[in-house]
């Protein structure tokens, strides 16, 4: 693999799961994992992780902050199956059972630079009202068999989900040799901050919103 003719390109991801906005729940923690195609392989870094439990602060009654770092490098030969990060949030319910509070996934940004992503979270719904009640009672909410399900489209038509809240992630993306292999992902403006239109970020200026 000489420098002139690379056979793989690298995608380095630094970032963090900054926090979440779950209006109804408290004491949540999250797990993350990556879903990627056949042509991808992590070369270094952690592929999955589980965060600390965080509670809502007194001054920020709607914000859960994890600031959980992500650091991973992928190598790949093919942009097909671009990595996605799957985040699932868990927390105790009223009876103290650990239940899932949300699943969400997003593609790793493809352009180098800093990015912020806010991903909406959802959980599968019970099939019937009775089941909803019993699952609430027993603390066994319906869960996806595999959190990675949310990163794929196949078979989702059989599920019903309800929205829960938002998780905000920030990424710093570095790529190597993408252009050499013929993939030009750099946009005209290299630094591009993306915020999900629905959710509010956690910038200092947003406090006025609480009025």
């Amino acid at each position, binding site marked *: 693999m000489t420098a002139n003719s690379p056979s793989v390109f690298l995608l380095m991801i630094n970032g963090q799961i900054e926090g979440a906005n779950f209006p109804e729940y408290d004491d949540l923690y999250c797990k993350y994992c990556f879903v990627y195609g056949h042509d991808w392989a992590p070369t270094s870094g952690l592929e999955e992780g589980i965060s600390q439990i965080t509670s809502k602060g007194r001054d920020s009654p709607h914000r859960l902050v994890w600031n959980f770092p992500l650091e991973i490098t992928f190598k790949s030969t*093919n942009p097909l199956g671009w990595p996605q990060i799957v985040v699932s949030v868990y927390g105790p319910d009223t009876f103290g059972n650990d239940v899932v509070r949300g699943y969400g996934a997003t593609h790793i940004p493809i352009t180098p630079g800093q990015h912020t992503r806010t991903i909406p979270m959802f959980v599968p719904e019970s099939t019937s009202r009775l089941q909803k009640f019993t699952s609430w009672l027993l603390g066994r909410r319906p869960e*996806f068999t595999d959190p990675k399900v949310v990163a794929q489209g196949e078979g989702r*038509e059989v599920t019903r989900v309800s929205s829960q809240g938002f998780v905000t992630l920030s990424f710093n993306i570095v790529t190597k040799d993408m252009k050499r292999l013929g993939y030009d992902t750099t946009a005209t403006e290299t630094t591009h901050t993306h915020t999900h239109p629905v959710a509010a970020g956690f910038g200092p200026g947003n406090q006025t919103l609480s009025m």
Partner: protein
Amino acid sequence: CLLLALSLWSPPSDLPPRPQAKPVPGSSHSESSTMRQRMKDKLKAARSEMGLPTAEEAYNFFTFDFDPEPDEETRKGQKRRTRPEGENEEGEDGGDDDEEKEEEDKEEVTEELFLIDQSADDFLVFKRAEYMGYQRRLQSENELLFTPSFLTVPASSKVPENMKPRYLEEEGLYVGERPPMSLTNQNILENRILKQEQVRWFGDDGRIMALPDPIKESSTRPPLFHIEDDLDPALQTVYRKALVSKHASQYISVGGETNGDYQLDVDVSGLIFSHHPLFSQEHVLGSRLVQLYDQHLSRQHRNLTEHLTTKLNGLRNTIGNMLEVHGGQRLTPVMQQRISEYKQEVRNTRRLRDLEQEKDRTLLKGIVKIWKEIKALRDFQRFTNTPYKLYLRREEVERASDVREYEAEIQAEVDELLDEMEEDYQRKVTEYRRQQEEWKVWRRKQRAKNKKKKKTQSQLDDNEDDEDNDDDDRTDGEAEPGPPKPKPPEEPDMEGVEKQVSEKASRIRRKPGEPILVPELTASGPITPNEQCPRGEFARREDVAKRSIFIKVLYNDKEVSRTDNRSLNSDFRVHFGQIFNLKIVNWPESIKLQVFEVLGLSTTLLADVFVPVPESSILTGSAPSEELVFSSNLRVMFDHEAVGSDVPFSFEVDGSNRQTLLTSGKLSCSVSWAVGEDDVPLAPPTTQPNGLKQLDAIASIGASGLNDMKKLGEWATESRLDPNDPNNADIMQLLKVASSGEVTAPDYFRLEQLQEEFNFVSEEDLEQSRRFRLLRLRNQEVAEFRNYKFVPAMEREVTDKVFEVRSLREIVDTKGHLDAHRALVAKHLHKIRESIINRFLIAKHHFIMSDLVQEEQVPTIGILGLNLFKLAEPKRPLKPQRKERKKVTAQNLSDGDIRLLLNIIRAYDIPVRKPSVNKPAVTSKSTRSFTETLTAGQSQRATQGSDWLLNQVQVRPFVEVSFQRSVLQTTTADGPNPCWNEDLQLPFSAPNGDYSTANLQSMKDEIFINIFDEVQYELGGDRGKEVHTRLEKHWLGSVKIPFSTIYFQSRIDGTFKVDTPPVLLGYSKERSLASDGGYDAVRSLTEGAFITLFITIEPQLVPGETIREKFESQESEGLLLASEVFERDAAVHFPDRPCLTTVININGKTVFITRYLRPLNPPQELLDAFPNSPQEATDLIARYVSLIPSLPDSVSFAGVCDLWSTCDQFLTLLAGDEEEHAVLLCNYFLSMGKKAWLIIGTAIPEGPTTYVLTYEQNRYLIWNPSSGQYYGQYDTFCPLQTVGCLVSADNVWLNTQAYTSPLRIRFDVTKAKLWKPFFSRAFPNPGLSSVQCITLHIILHLPFPKISLTCRIEKILKEKIMEWRPRNPTRWNRYCTSTLRHFLPKLELSRGRDVADEHRLELQSLLGDYRISGFPLHLPFSEVRPIVEAVYSTGVHNVEASNVEFALAVHVHAYPNNVLSVWVYLASLIRMR
């Protein structure tokens, strides 16, 4: 806002005062107040604009010092200075608004108190919300708002001034129907538009412009029905079973899907003769009269004259209007063009009208003339034959107006003609002038030329100078012809025209004032009775009465039915009124009706009438009755009054004016497609086999079968279709296409017209790209590439080798086989596998809820109760129960996570070493028969017992387990009944690292459990202290367990029979001496060694659930339902008993299980082998069946299903699993007259399997079809553990007894308490036919030489053994080999039983010097690989001694139908000296 307000009142005191904001004394109050006001305004504006300021804006607002404008700055400075003075003033006169004042007061207070300048506090204003009274608001709103009135707007205000509304429709332009809209809304809208003064929204007619109503009257889409809605019962769908079509392609059901349920209704209502040989002269005239009258009626009905006249008038009016409208103005060329077109039209119409009028007139005249003739004839012959009577009704007209109309018409025509002539004349004149001009020019040229010529000529002869130019001209004209001199056109003859017109009018039109004559024909006149007629006429009438008519209906030239005979009446009309329903299967090609006349016994064919095959849209009930004309040229003559046919006759007395008439008539009938019960037309689809493609456009106008585009085009231009009418859109489109040169409209529809634009690379390049191919293969989940990682980024890095794997797979299979037939079979099997796998892959992508979401089941009462019960359980019970381990879904596993756990507990009856004594043992050379087998053990024990006491040499067995080429072994134990009780852990890795269920299921790996004897030899220990020992291991037997079995059953626990070779050189069967009671006695019933094992996988894997796909079936719906209910009941009540009623055949269709059983003849050769001993024959057949190689379905059809092939398929494929073996064995047994059943049950190690049960000699025998072994019902070592159900050829019984073990149940299926039958009295067997062929096709002769196969196997094995011993030389003892080779056929003959002793003796005598250890292996033959594997697993090649020699012999025995049994004799020899 509340928050902000609160914070205002608690200003932070610790903030340092900002110098900039300090109040500066000397600033004027007024200015400061304006400044403040401005700020306030700004704040207000900001607030009102966006609700709330953003953080940034707020910050800017507070920190920004407003200095960009210098004026502002100075003013500010002033303001600051003047401020303190103004404060009091402000307080006093501070405006009228109290609130503001108060606010400002506060501000000042804070300012003074805290010395803080303007903060947010300064700019807030608190005041009440403003209130405006209702009336006031209404008033103000009235100024702003506009309420459109709903009164109709006068048309005048909608069109531009000084314009009249113009109605396009009246001008003959197409105006579509407007969509319906309520008048009120329309008025409101119009008023609103008027208010906005956007008059352009109104059309010329003063109405709002609107597109035509886009809604079609009939829906183009089939109506959708919802299940929850109540369906009209007529629309209810009825399930009909799909039937296999028996018809070939020439039949209507081309696809084989819709069976021809088509019906043609042929309605033969009757026929009328327009001429018949038996017509009298009067009849001839009568029929002629009738014809004319019919013509008259039909003309009157169509009333073309009237129609054309009105059209003519309309056209004339239009022209008049146009001329009038544009009266004085010059006509635009377009208008002129139009007018001339109209004129042309007028001319044509007039001509047509004249023609029609003339016809009317002649017709009327003709009718009257014929009627006169009839009357004359009746008078002449003095009798009446026909009942016709003609009345002429007069309709008087008003003479004056009639004359006026007449004159006006003539005048109009004359005017027009004159106009035309004038126009014509003018045109001619202009033409003439033009020509004359041309001629003059030409002439001038000529002159000039001539002059030149003359000059030259004059030099020659001056005298002739004065000659006439004319002459010159003439000669020149002759020489080079120029345009002829035009003649001036003639003046039109104006007077003649009027004359002509009035002449014509008098010819073709009714004279003015003449009454209108309306003829009326009735058939009510009296006919002279027979008696009063002359003899000739009488004879004719007699003749008529004798005759009768019937009609044959021929469909595709085959007679399908005929009408009744109907006698001919005097009026020669025959009424049938019969409808024939033809149920048709073939395509209708022709429908023919034959008219026959019967006279006495003879019938004559009068005529053939061909009826066109109706369109599929013509249905009974709506089909019109057609009148088809027929005629025949048969010559018939009579000697009576009748005129005959093809015979000249005359009405005149003198015989002049002769006529010849042929038999002819009209047949009225209708052919149409029938309508089924539920209003479904029973017509075949329109696609006709002759390839007549109907274009949509033509069909849409109802003129089907029109194929001539040109004619169509002509017709379209002639008929002047309105191109704007959407009804004509189709045909206009068609014409456009036709005129553009393409005769056929494209009959395809392109969805992605622009696809080509976006193809960035051509199709071929894409095909050639290896990388793309790789990606595509992976995406298609082709087995080799399903988990292919890292497709290279560059095309050049993809090597062709990658694809070789795939192509290899297809080739290798055939290469690996030694015989062609098996290669073919393998190929076929591969194909089936492929297709099944594909189906499975598709099915795998259908998810259900439980695949994606884990959800707790709603607890039932039972589960709740059980949970409550559990609470009361002791925490640490004295007798703990085995808990189920947690199951692991296989998807998140990787290599090394899974282990295979084996617990080898103990073994029984391991063969013991035979002391190498030279004296021949007293062997029991009893050839045991079928029954003796059971008692044979004892005799042997007696003889061996004494040996054991004397010789301490025993056996030191250990177990070696190999799986996926990793080998582990236990410690060595002592004695023939060793106890190891050892745990072995074997690593497990899935192929390709793919731990998906599908992949694990398809693993073909097997676990080999081999028992070896560890032999210690002392080497050279004769003289020194050093004693060298060498360890050798001798193979004693093995157990093979496929991985799939463990995977599916999650654990295997039990005692297995060790597969020991029939002969073990150097070993003998040792019986445990200590016969401890009954247990041993029972066990000794069977011979062979046994091993107790426990195998499981850690962690436990969830076996993939077999997909319960609903397979299509040809069984009846009721049967399928019943079987489903039966199986479900069984699963509910006896969950551990396998129950099978329907199975899936090799085509993937569900078949009822009993169809597989049917007596089938075993190969005669096997029956003949033991003609006297049926037991032996039975044994041999079981062996024969077991020799067919076994191939588990679960391996080949991973997780899909269990496929059952029929016996002939099984014998052709020569591969199948237990079911196929069992079915074949059972069928053979049935044909041998045994009572045989299939047992559906579970066994170890196979898991769910199928065995065969037979009843003979008052006991039940259980046969293992894949090994050929049989067990008594009470045999403890019978591998069958559970009996689920029994299957015979006509019923299925479910085991409903308390126990499932064959030891504890009764096999008497007649006991209803013990066995629940599937077919009972309530649901009897519908007589299911068998799917098996009656006779099996048996190939007696081998398609290849047996010897060559033997040699090849031997060669391969020898090479392999040498290959396995890379470090040591491998010597072959040829002498021993040849000896062994002689033993093998004997072994085959005795089927491996009991030749050991002779054998050994023989060998020992021959090879006394050698220590031999060896054994024969016996295998069914499918391919070489299993043989090689088996040889490898024995480990014979591992003997490391330097002086070792080997012997290997192979024998292949062929059974009928290409079933082969392979014997491999392996031995290692070590020289003793």
